[in-house]
């Protein structure tokens, strides 16, 4: 009976401690309530925004800005998704139509923007706050250009009732209330002039210029021009040799010409599959032949042009496989197909958002629209001179001709950097250029469709016109 009493005692004790017994905290997980307390938390939280940006841009940066343009064509065996983008057959299931990843980056930024001010003052507080604001502006700038009206979310969501369905806000509101105001705040707070892989004054000014160049009620060429002029004063330099120019992309990726690049590290982030798709291994994407010809005609012997050469794939009969051009900006051309394929999967090239050369050409665009043709030509020739290429004649004054000259120069200089489609849209020539290539003839199709995945999850979101 003694034993029985002993066990009964255990029984009673066990019951008393039941509430505590049912709590099993996880030591390897971080809970929200324990975070955003210190300076180092802020550093980690802001790094989290960049990481979310990597996810959002890894593939879609190219889908949005590059593949819809006249730069690349499909080979015989395209991925269905590339096929849809390049042939202008976007559907609600095309990858790139889904804003979930971009909005996750926005949510991460929202959390930082809400929580950093409450952390007791520390030296890098303004820096981190400015980075978070600038990144949020960047994300929304992409959102409005890809989908037009988008939901306006600026606060973190922590409970189900806050996550109830949110409708789309007008593009003008997004510019006014988020993009422009975030940029203005970021510009004032930002203490750092230049930083390649983080937002700095340079990055903020570049984004600001880009935003003010973009059509809309806020468009202002002078502001854009002034922002780039201010940026030029921060110490960026154009590379002057072909080898140095190539090193911007192939590494060490620390050129003085880069204004903002999203860093990539294989060990930490895995391969950059977006850039990997330019690898000619499969090959999935082939630089367009028309572009090659236009380029050769415009600037004979330009070292920036895509390379031609055969793959180690023998075809019987040979006519079936005419694609022999490769974008070698990011990768060397391998003779061994396996090595090439491995590079595609294992590369960790940074995504370069803004470079000085691109920004100077953007400024040229502004000068042209501000009726300063010689200023515009001068800027083109600054690039040509730095690259050691023949200069453009200064006698041209026709606005359209200069616009086309700038567009071409941007296309050559920024091939494969995710800008060409935006350039066409910004200058309102997208239908003109793309109609002969993929039959794009509908202004409404400039915007992307909204993914079925997004529509399913919020009944208030309606599909874009044209889809």
């Amino acid at each position, binding site marked *: 009976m003694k034993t029985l009493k002993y066990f009964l005692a255990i029984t009673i004790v066990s019951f008393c401690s039941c509430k505590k017994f049912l709590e099993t905290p996880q030591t390897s997980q971080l809970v929200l309530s324990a975070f955003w307390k210190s300076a180092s938390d802020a550093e980690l939280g802001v790094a*989290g925004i960049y990481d979310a940006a990597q996810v959002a841009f890894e593939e879609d940066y190219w889908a949005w800005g590059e593949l819809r343009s006249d730069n690349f064509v499909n080979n015989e065996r395209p991925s269905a998704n590339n096929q849809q983008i390049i*042939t202008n057959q976007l559907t609600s299931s095309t990858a790139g139509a889904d804003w*979930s990843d971009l*909005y996750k980056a926005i949510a991460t930024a929202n959390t930082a923007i809400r929580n950093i001010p409450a952390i007791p003052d520390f030296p890098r507080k303004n820096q981190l706050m400015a980075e978070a604001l600038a990144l949020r502006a960047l994300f929304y700038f992409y959102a409005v250009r890809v989908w037009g009206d988008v939901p306006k979310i600026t606060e973190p969501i922590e409970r189900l009732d806050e996550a109830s369905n949110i409708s789309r806000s007008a593009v003008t509101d997004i510019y006014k209330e988020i993009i422009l105001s975030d940029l203005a705040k970021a510009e004032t707070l930002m203490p750092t002039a230049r930083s390649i892989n983080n937002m700095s004054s340079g990055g903020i000014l570049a984004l600001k210029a880009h935003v003010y160049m973009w059509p809309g009620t806020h468009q202002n060429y002078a502001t854009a021009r002034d922002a780039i002029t201010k940026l030029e004063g921060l110490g960026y330099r154009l590379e002057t040799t072909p080898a140095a120019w190539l090193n911007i992309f192939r590494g060490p990726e620390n050129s003085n010409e880069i204004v903002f690049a999203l860093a990539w590290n294989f060990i930490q982030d895995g391969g950059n599959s977006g850039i990997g798709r330019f690898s000619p291994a499969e090959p999935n994407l082939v630089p367009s032949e028309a572009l090659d010809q236009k380029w050769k005609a415009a600037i004979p012997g330009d070292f920036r042009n895509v390379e031609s050469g055969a793959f180690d794939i023998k075809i019987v009969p040979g006519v079936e496989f005419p694609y022999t051009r490769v974008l070698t900006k990011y990768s060397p051309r391998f003779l061994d197909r396996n090595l090439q394929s491995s590079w595609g999967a294992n590369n960790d090239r940074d995504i370069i958002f803004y470079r000085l050369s691109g920004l100077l050409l953007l400024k040229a665009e502004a000068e042209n629209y501000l009726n300063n043709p010689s200023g515009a030509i001068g800027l083109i020739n600054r690039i040509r001179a730095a690259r050691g290429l023949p200069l453009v004649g200064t006698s041209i004054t026709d606005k359209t001709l200069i616009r086309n000259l700038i567009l071409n120069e941007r296309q050559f200089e920024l091939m494969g950097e995710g800008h060409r489609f935006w350039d066409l849209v910004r200058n309102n020539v997208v239908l003109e250029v793309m109609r002969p290539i993929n039959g794009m003839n509908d202004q409404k199709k400039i915007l992307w469709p909204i993914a079925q995945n997004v529509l399913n999850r919020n009944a208030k979101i309606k599909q874009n016109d044209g889809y």
Partner: protein
Amino acid sequence: MKNDQSGLRAFMYCLIFLTFILPASHLFSQETTSLVKGIVQTDNDAPLTGVSVFIRNTKNNFTAGASTDSSGIFTFSRVPSGGPYSFTFSAVGYETQTLAGYNIKNDITLSLVVKMKASAATLDQVVVIGYGTSKRRNVTGAVVSVNEREISQRSPTNAFEAIQGQMAGVQITTSSGAPGDNAALRIRGVSTFDAGANPLYIVDGQPFDNIDNLNPNDINSIEVLKDGSSAAIYGSKSANGVVIITTKSARKGESKVNVSYLRSYTKARIMPVATTNDRLKFEKFHGIIGDRADVDTFNQQFYNNNNFQELMYRTAVRDQFNIGVIAGSDKTKIYWNTGFLNQQGVIRTTEFMRINSRLNVDHIINSRITMGVRTGLSYDVQQNIDQRFEADLIGVLLTKAPFSTIYDIDGSFLINNDSYRGRENPLMEYSLMDVKKRNIRGNLFNYLEVKILKDLKYRANLGVDFNYERNTEFFPGFVRSGSERIQSNFYSSLGWNWIHESFFNYDKTFGDHEISAVAGFSAQKWGQPEERISGLLANTLVPTLNNATEILITNTNTLNEDNHSLASVFGRLSYNYKNKYLLSGTIRRDGSSRFGPENKWGNFPSISGGWRFSDEPFMQKIRFIHDAKLRAGFAVTGNERIGNQDYAVQLTTGNFYNGINGVGLSSRLANAAIKWEETKQSNIGLDLSVLKGKLTFNVDYYIKNTVDLLANQPLDAATGLRDIRVNLGNLRNRGFEFAVQATPYNRRGLTWRTNFNFSTNTNEVSRLASGVPIVTSSHITKEGSSLGSFYGYTILGVFAYDQSNAFTPDARQLTPTFDPAGTFINYTLDGKVYSGEVKKITVVGQTPKGGDFYWKDNNGDFRIDELDREILGNPYPKYFGGFRNEISYKNFSFSFLFDYQFDVKVYNTFMQELSQLRQNAPTPPKYVLDHLWKGPGDTDARFPGGSRRIQNQLGTNAPTSYWVEDADFIKLRNIKLSYNLPVNVGKRFGVTEMSVYGSVNNALVWTSYRGFDPEVNVAGSVLSAGVDNARYPRGREFIFGINVNF
């Protein structure tokens, strides 16, 4: 690296040797004074083996036990004279008999001849139910059991193989033929989406999530609690059913040493593949990869015609050895068994080894207190077996160009450039890589039982289970791709859990009334800390991280996330009147650390009743009915296998940017109200026994309604969050089960026993969170249809001509007509010339021509896209079951076991992938090559013409109707012939019982399925089951074994 295993193997052979030469009989022989012996037979004089005989002196309470040998003979060698003695004879399937009033005189041998009557089937059999036992006669739920003999039918290596096909409503699918691989057990279908569909396992009272390491030799019986009313006493873990396993223990007076050994040889099935000739033809169409000779040349290489399967497979040997001691005295019962298993895989360099040891001890301290322990230990090693590589490897074996070279002239491996599927030389690869999974598992379970009053017992259980896993992987650079780096991965985890249970049993009979009650509580806690580390190595000289140049941080982490705890109180009350009217109710209240603060505790009640109408007066005239009982029950059961922290807002680490390990948001929103899934189960059944128990039927019908289904409710994408875990959604399973056991013939020493079972199951999703279908690349789960159905495109055939892609606006296909020169003239519709608008189907911007697939355009927009996907079938069988027969004559016994499944589909993704006909593609299966489009006018073709590069223009992983195949099968799982040595022969060698047998596993398969095997894994996510991505092949196994008792 393999030395540890070969050492163990040598040790095992030593043990086998020692055991057989040891004069075991001398060790256990005893002096005799007065002898009682006898023979036990059936009513038709056949000897009965394994009858337990119990002798008791009614005056001084002297007791002893024994059991009969294969000749039906039992012996008590030292019985004190006096008396009166009573003898009790009991055996499964026979009525217990007691002979009383024997007085034994000194030095006089008493001889008995006893005839046992077959009992009314198994009605008096004791069935283990939750926290107690019950007579089969009084069971009101749906409980099915298998005994030792049925378990040993297939000479299994694990408990799942042991019961496959033997229980109605229980479907077991082994995932592959890899040695050491486990299986999925599904009871009455699947009643969850992603909370885990495995049942709860209870081994001797200790709960487990899996029983992979259990030695089937240790199992005495397996009971499956299928319906809610019998399972509900396990509360929030019971919704998927409960499997109760009882390990062996000694009987009073028993004393024996058991040794068994088997050896088997397994051969894998060789699939027909393309020959060199076929491959060359294929390459003529598709071009060549790499700097290789043109197919049209007389290059010597093309004289090679390797069959890679034959090179990679081998006849695999299995050795399995067990040695055990079973001894029972008045006060102490001991069961000890150690088993060794060494099993080669049919793929070279793959191997599995396991050692188990079990010690079960029960001791009666005094008339009130009993204590006992159940200890199980196991260690196992799996060599080079990993699902991640199997599909690739098997793909290479089937598709690598047969003229590819493997060995250099000097016998060393050759890396060749024909890198179809990125694998240069599979033989080399498997000989270089070293993937090892080691597992040490132990469980200790103690109990104490105190008899407080005559009818009231108290029992306390304390159990600990731990499981240490260590996986090491070493890949020299060559493995997987010529350019990959040298890599080593390490993983280890320590899973542990403990349980404490205390409960009271009260059993009382007042006249015709019988009451049985249980009440108690339990507490259980789990944890599983784990580490993972990966590194790139400088070279292959040292395969560990001492040689590392870089640690791969994205694959390096330490987790401690699996902590969780469960506290419960439970009770049961059963009542019966004259064994005729039966009523039982249970209740359990569970609190779990997994449940959100708003739903910390849940209640799980059940009620069931039975009516033995065969005992009613009006039934007495119906003579042929021996026993008949109607059963019905209802219960609320739960599934608590949800996330551990679904209720708390989580942040994530590992969001690296530029050297900083950033903190990011979880894509899931926390839900403070998260709780268990609740399944309401109703069961109605009939047990019928006719012709004096020679024929019994069990019929059951059930409905399982799962409500509060755990689901991921998608959130507005603009929140940046993916979903929230909610209890929302309904799923209904319904089914019918039918089982017959019969002894059609039992005369003159010849006995034929047979049992057959048949089950149906259908399920329907009646409500989904937000109504949004769950669509994966190959499956869909949507309201109004079965869960996890295949979802893809239908192919109607191949366009015979370029002009065949022509339709009327209302989607009727037009027939093109041609002049004798082959020039297109016009279209006809129903024999008349058609001049209206002609519509053409487009696929991703392209217009299919002659020799391209004719896809079904479901929405009539002439554009094949996502919206044209439809349900192509379901991976869960509608009908399944098994059929077992055993015929014994004198010392011989012959048995065989079939199982089958019908109305089931498998997505043969492996074959679909192989028949893409891409430019750098592997050789398609022979079946595809034989049915390619040959040119305009080929109306019989099933696959696109050879020069079409992409067969699946949609470029999706979605299934096509071609490769969602019928996976119906009937398998002859096993045939077994065994011979029992006559006792008088064995006695000369000190052997009391000995049997030898030969057996064949996986003897025959009848199926129309084109892949390796229609039995395809249903483990993993229940929403995307039935995908055949080429797993380790199953082989036909020939077994020879011997079993000896000393």
